[in-house]
């Protein structure tokens, strides 16, 4: 009973925190609100008229929504880029900020689930996947696997984050025996969610562009090289707008790891291109559609080369310590890698995989206004969740938000979130 009361105090205190902010904060929320409302209206249209309002047709039956979903699974998996140095290598500078990576993972999973919701033809039937009333085609269907691992990953991260922040709210360290196993489990899980998502495409023999063994490693490389980019920007914003201290080393180390991941990403893309162009079978058609266009059909070509340029730029900027450590080039690199991987994972994966279609037809897909509005709404919802969670987490980390009376001293010394010592703790 008292636990429930204490938790509700935590919730109400969190709500109060997110309702307080400076004009910049409210402007940001207002922008997100506009996008969310626009997205909701567009989705209402889509739900009543049907998916015909999107540009997807039989020939290209997956598009912008699933592309975004794929990219965001990668962002969610990228939390592991922080978790491994923090917990496996016990590297203190990152230890302090790993929770933000987990919050990003949570927001990304929320967006993933929302993108699935807006993409299916009968969203009210999604419960058909849940036993005992539904039926899940496990282990045969990779989509079933994906639904399972994404939700479990979400749960794991949610439990860890809530536990840590709730404990910190009451000024108490988190319980190592709860957090450490879950966090360690989240590492293979992060690899797992993105591997399973890759298998979703990989396993389809009907789509030679996807049916390549390299897809799962390439997904992971691209995820680790782009996912943390948001985090790097957010960390810099936190440093700027709050009293949160984040060590430069932490940021530089993340950027360095992203550089290595980007190298792998570029290498894997390169070997894929070699195989397609050198073997020169009919399967080359999909890669050619992406990089060169087929005949008059050249819609995606600018995107293809932009992605290459952006990824190369990001790699070069992050691999050079001087560029990494310069805030301007660092941020250019972040934007470049995020945009580059977004294009390559979204437009560059789904659409060339489906164009030409299985019967050789070319339908040039690019998203419709409805899809853009709905997607912007989903991204806004995810960013909203991230912003609100971040606000609470930062406030608690800085000691500005505390549950016990007397501990609400606004200017208490900022304390990084710390684990329990040798004694076992009770909630």
């Amino acid at each position, binding site marked *: 009973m008292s636990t429930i009361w204490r938790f509700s105090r935590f919730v109400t205190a969190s709500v109060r925190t997110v309702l307080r902010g400076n004009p910049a904060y409210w402007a940001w929320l207002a922008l997100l609100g506009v996008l969310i409302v626009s997205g909701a209206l567009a989705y209402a249209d889509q739900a009543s008229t049907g998916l*015909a309002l*999107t*540009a997807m047709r039989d*020939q290209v039956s997956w598009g912008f929504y699933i592309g975004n979903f794929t990219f965001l699974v990668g962002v969610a998996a990228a939390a592991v880029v922080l978790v491994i140095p923090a917990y496996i290598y016990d590297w203190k500078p990152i230890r302090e900020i790993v929770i933000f990576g987990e919050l990003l993972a949570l927001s990304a999973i929320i967006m993933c689930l929302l993108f699935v919701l807006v993409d299916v033809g009968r969203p009210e039937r999604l419960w058909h996947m849940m036993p005992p009333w539904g039926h899940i085609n496990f282990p045969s269907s990779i989509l079933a696997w994906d639904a399972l691992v994404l939700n479990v990953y979400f749960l794991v991260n949610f439990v860890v984050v809530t536990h840590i922040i709730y404990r910190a709210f009451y000024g108490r360290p988190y319980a190592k025996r709860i957090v450490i196993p879950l966090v360690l489990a989240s590492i293979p899980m992060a690899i797992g969610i993105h591997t399973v998502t890759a298998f979703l495409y990989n396993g389809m023999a009907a789509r030679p562009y996807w049916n390549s063994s390299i897809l799962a490693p390439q997904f992971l490389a691209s995820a680790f090289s782009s996912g943390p980019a948001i985090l790097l920007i957010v960390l810099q914003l936190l440093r700027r707008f709050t009293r949160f201290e984040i060590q430069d080393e932490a940021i530089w180390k993340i950027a360095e790891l992203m550089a290595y991941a980007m190298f792998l990403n570029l290498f894997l893309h390169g070997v894929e291109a070699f195989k397609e162009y050198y073997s020169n079978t009919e399967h080359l058609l999909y890669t050619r559609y992406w990089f060169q266009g087929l005949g008059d059909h050249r819609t995606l070509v600018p995107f293809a080369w932009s992605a290459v340029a952006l990824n190369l730029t990001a790699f070069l900027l992050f691999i050079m310590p001087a560029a990494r450590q310069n805030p301007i080039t660092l941020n250019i690199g972040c934007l470049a890698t995020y945009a580059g991987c977004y294009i390559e994972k979204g437009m560059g994966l789904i659409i060339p995989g489906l164009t030409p279609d299985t019967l050789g037809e070319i*339908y040039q897909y690019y998203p*419709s206004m409805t899809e853009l509005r709905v997607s912007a709404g989903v991204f806004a919802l995810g960013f909203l969740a991230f912003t609100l969670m971040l606000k609470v987490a930062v406030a608690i980390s800085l000691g500005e938000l505390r549950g016990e009376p007397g501990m609400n001293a606004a200017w208490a010394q900022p304390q990084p979130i710390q684990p329990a010592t040798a004694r076992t703790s009770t909630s």
Partner: protein
Amino acid sequence: MLSCAVAVWAAWLLVRDGGARVADTVRHQSVTASASPPAAAPVQLRVEVPPPPFSEGVFPCSECHNEVDLPSNPTRRQLVDAHDEIVLKHDEEHRWCLDCHDGKNRDQLHLASGEVVPFDESYRVCGQCHGEKYRDWRAGVHGRRIGHWNGAKQYLLCVHCHSPHQPKFKALAPQPAPRRPMRPDR
């Protein structure tokens, strides 16, 4: 056990559907015929077909073509007095009307051996040269059939699709093409 059940069921169907499954029966027979001494050719059983597609008012031919009114002229020639609308495009270099139509009995066709064949068995005439097609037709593999896959089927005569005088299958006007996928904003 399953194959026994299938065999019994197939046999039961054969017995039940008698005439309609004759094509299958014929194949069956040719299989059994190979077991017996190779003396006579397999018996050609009749196939039930709709009436032959005669032009209006032309049958019975013997109304005009009898030895009294129109004695038979077996000379190979271009017809000018009647039936001149028929342009033969069926091996016309080597054959003409009376190679299929029986000279003595115009209400019948005839085989190369001289055996007369009624119009509703014209497939036997076609089958002389087009043996593979004939065999496939009997098996139901060539040509259109409607009906039941596990029961009565309706055959058509060769001539229902192929005019015997110009047998090349006529070109057809195709139904409209499917609609191309259109974006919602077009």
